[in-house]
């Protein structure tokens, strides 16, 4: 058993955090981790309530900058702060309500149906390239390419620039997904933000007076009709959409395939009953989703479960643990692709529920459907490992698989 000094980057926890979560739910559902310096919440009910509690703030960026940085550092990283502080994921009401009202329209289930043809085209392109190959890398040869191309096309970024914004996103995510072991991640995140912003500004300038059929042009139109919105708001929003819109989906693809390969009978069942594809995706989200947890900052003294916490404390709500809580899910360790109901928290819940969930669901649906239809045999061709990150659970490339 681990202690209150649990190292959240312990290789065993990175490999398989679920036994640790089981122990937390049973023995210390809300506890303070001295090493991480915050509260860790493991049971479904507490995580669910936390995601809906307005006293738990999503703006964890401001306290981080205020309490963990010197004045000099705050000045040095002012741009990083400015960008993150504009992202709806790190903003609380009332500002959040307004941002969400603008961006909520971009990815509604109805809006993403108009993107279906784009997704189908890229899924076809990259899976067709697999024909006759035998061995492929699930991450670099598909998991990254498909969602990155889809989101770039939607925003209006040229395909040739894909590798650049992928690199910027990855560097930024070392900061945002809790890759705390990565050296100088603050500096690298800021460098990426500077380059990313300059790049997006180029796309923006190209569209002044010459709008195109893409999301950046649409956001520029919104900006023109809203006196409070600035050019930087448009650029930072595009940065968020490009970032959130590809790496988390890449992670979801890798984790979903990993879950199914580890449960061959369920994969066979999906082949026999392809209509289960949607519930299979929901089950893989529950079973091994992209985000293990999300952070909140406590706005006033309160109680979580039966544990008092103080204003200013930070909290990690473990969705990945909630999703295996036997109080909520019968036989939680079993992957059941027909599980219903499946009220998992993989996309969060409440006002910060993943804005891109409808797009991610559609991308996975098409990808999984085609993967199973085109390849009779899919199996691992070697070991893979997860990135050293506290908040996300992300398979590092390469993830080699045999396909035939």
């Amino acid at each position, binding site marked *: 058993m681990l202690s209150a000094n649990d190292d959240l980057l312990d290789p065993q926890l990175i490999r398989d955090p679920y036994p640790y979560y089981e122990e937390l739910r049973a023995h210390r559902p809300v506890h303070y981790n001295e090493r991480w310096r915050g509260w860790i919440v493991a049971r479904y009910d507490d995580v669910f309530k936390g995601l809906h509690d307005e006293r738990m703030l999503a703006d964890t960026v401001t306290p981080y900058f205020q309490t963990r940085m010197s004045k000099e550092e705050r000045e040095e990283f002012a741009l990083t702060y400015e960008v993150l502080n504009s992202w709806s994921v790190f903003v609380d009401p009332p500002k959040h309500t307004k941002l969400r*009202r603008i961006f909520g329209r971009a990815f509604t289930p109805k809006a993403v149906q108009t993107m279906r043809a784009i997704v189908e085209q890229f899924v076809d392109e990259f899976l067709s390239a697999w024909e006759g190959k035998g061995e492929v890398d699930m991450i670099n040869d598909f998991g990254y390419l498909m969602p990155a191309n889809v989101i770039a096309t939607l925003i209006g970024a040229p395909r040739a620039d894909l590798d650049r914004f992928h690199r910027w996103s990855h560097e930024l995510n070392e900061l945002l997904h809790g890759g705390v072991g990565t050296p100088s991640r603050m500096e690298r995140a800021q460098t990426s933000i500077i380059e990313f912003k300059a790049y997006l500004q180029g796309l923006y300038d190209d569209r002044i007076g010459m709008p195109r059929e893409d999301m950046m042009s649409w956001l520029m139109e919104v900006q023109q009709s809203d006196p409070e919105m600035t050019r930087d708001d448009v650029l930072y929003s595009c940065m968020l959409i490009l970032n959130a819109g590809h790496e988390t989906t890449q992670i979801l693809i890798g984790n979903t395939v990993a879950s199914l390969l580890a449960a061959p009978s369920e994969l066979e069942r999906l082949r026999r009953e392809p209509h289960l594809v949607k519930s299979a995706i929901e089950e893989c989200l529950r079973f091994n989703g992209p985000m293990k947890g999300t952070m909140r900052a406590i706005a006033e003294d309160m109680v979580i479960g039966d544990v008092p916490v103080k204003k200013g404390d930070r909290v990690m709500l473990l969705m990945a643990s909630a999703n295996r809580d036997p109080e909520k899910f019968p036989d939680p360790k079993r992957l059941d692709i027909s599980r219903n109901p499946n009220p998992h928290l993989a996309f969060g819940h409440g006002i910060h*529920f993943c804005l891109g969930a409808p797009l991610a669901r559609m991308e996975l649906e098409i990808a999984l459907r085609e993967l199973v239809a085109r390849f009779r045999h899919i199996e691992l061709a070697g070991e893979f490992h997860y990135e050293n990150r506290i908040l996300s659970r992300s398979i590092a490339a390469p993830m080699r698989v045999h396909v035939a």
Partner: protein
Amino acid sequence: MKRRLVRVVIDANACVGSGMCAGSYPDAFQVQADGHALFIGKIIDETIAKDAAELCPVSAISLVYEDD
């Protein structure tokens, strides 16, 4: 035959409490203490109901019509 919107139904199993409906139309929708949205409108405005249904990220809002 004309159809009339008679009810706005929210599927509590699907609702994720994103508040898109309540944030956009606070007179018609409210997120309850249990985290799920409820239709609270005194009158049923079809334009509002349709837009809220479209805005919902999980399509939890459905509209029930009756023939006039």
